[in-house]
């Protein structure tokens, strides 16, 4: 039983609020430091790509945001499922806090992808399967946020959007596969293979560090948003007065 106490404590808003307040500066501090180090590593230390020259450096923002956009959607769906199954209010609050951050990461991945596409493909937008799948992911986020905003009763909004998040996460791999299949039929030759060439270690470590920095940044923002959500949802609870006193 003792091993499950941490899980049960997660259901308690005051506990989670205190936890979020304690850890926000740590994650924020790590994000700032790691981002500076990774930027230095990526923009100064890493050698230019022999084919893409300096334009490849876009990868240091593009790839981490693209990975995170998908991971945040999964996190949101897991939190939503936990909220549905164990009726945990905090989990619903966490899912609600995830959505706008994930949507912004998706926009960042699309934006940097377009900026990268201009020198590489000669156009801001091509119907590349990854870009298209990312765009559909953005629409999934919009649907989730739209449903949440469209239902006035907060309990109903939590549950309905949780069902949508779970349905969406089942659909993500199907969308990914169908878009790739669609593209392989229509695009005769890819302009440039963006596959997995073996990356030099000097190029790779800033990328991994940048991913950790962005992930840490996501956790920081999530914790801040979660606190705001908890304050809004529990505004009539007595523990709020004690915390804010």
């Amino acid at each position, binding site marked *: 039983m003792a091993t499950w106490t941490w899980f049960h404590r997660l259901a308690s808003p005051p506990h989670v609020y205190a936890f979020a307040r304690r850890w926000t500066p740590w994650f924020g501090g790590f994000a700032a430091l790691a981002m500076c180090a990774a930027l230095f590593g990526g923009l100064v230390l890493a050698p230019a790509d022999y084919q893409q020259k300096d334009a490849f450096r876009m990868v240091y923002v593009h790839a981490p945001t693209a990975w995170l956009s998908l991971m945040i959607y999964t996190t949101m769906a897991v939190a939503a499922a936990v909220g549905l199954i164990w009726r945990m209010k905090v989990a619903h609050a966490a899912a609600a806090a995830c959505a706008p951050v994930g949507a912004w990461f998706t926009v960042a991945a699309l934006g940097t992808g377009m900026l990268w596409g201009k020198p590489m493909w000669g156009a801001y937008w091509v119907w590349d399967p990854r870009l298209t799948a990312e765009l*559909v992911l953005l*629409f*999934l986020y*919009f*649907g989730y946020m*739209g*449903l949440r905003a*469209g*239902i*006035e*009763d907060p*309990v*109903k*909004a939590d*549950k*309905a959007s949780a*069902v*949508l998040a*779970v*349905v*969406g996460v*089942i*659909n993500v791999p*199907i*969308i990914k*596969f*169908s*878009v790739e*299949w*669609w593209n392989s*039929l229509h695009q005769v030759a890819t302009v440039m293979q963006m596959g997995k060439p073996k990356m030099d270690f000097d190029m790779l470590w800033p990328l991994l560090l940048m991913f950790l920095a962005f992930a840490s940044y996501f956790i920081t923002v999530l914790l801040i948003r979660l606190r705001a959500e908890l304050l809004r949802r529990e505004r009539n609870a007595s523990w709020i007065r004690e915390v804010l006193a």
Partner: protein
Amino acid sequence: MKTLVTRSTALAAARLVAVRDLRLAFHKPSQVIQPLMFFMIVATLFPLTLTPEMSRLRDAAPGVLWIGALLSSLLALEFLFRDDAVDGTLEQFALSGQSLTWMLFAKTCTHWMLTGLPLALSAPIAAAALGVSAGAMGGVVASLALGSFAMSLVGAIGAGLTLGARRGGVLLSLLTLPLAVPILIFGARATQLAISGGDIAPPMYLLGAIAVLGLTLAPLAAAAAVRIGLE
């Protein structure tokens, strides 16, 4: 023994729901006819905006047929649960002690028989107007029939989720369209292959796979969604 009895009563309840919905549709045929008219009008708008040239219209035909079918089925999905939620029928379903999943599944299948199937059967008229040859019609009808069935199943989840929302119509499209992307891709591909005389089996298998997945999971999700909306 007990499970056998409950399963047969669940099926009997589902059959009653289906018969009721069919009977209601015969009394109010406008719900069946209007989405069809909408589909025909959308298909007519493309020659007016694109080109009257048959060869170019034939290239655009899969897209025109599928986007028309998708929009028309979204329009029809609005009526899937809404009327029954407003007059309290859904609440009675939920309180009846019978399986809500089976009853909503019956409703969804009936809804497809009344909207998706007629649309697929009348698609050859629109397709012929877009320059599609008569030999391709079998493939056009088959792909639209299977695709609209999958679409009804996915859409039932969205229709259930938006029961609690104001201005459900736009929201329903916003939720359902991204989820329908795979159906659209495989369905349009099957139609395209049918028109160009290719083998439509591969995209039809994939479309069938999506329909089977929807068949197993969508009624459960729709029942959960409707329960939330009724709370």
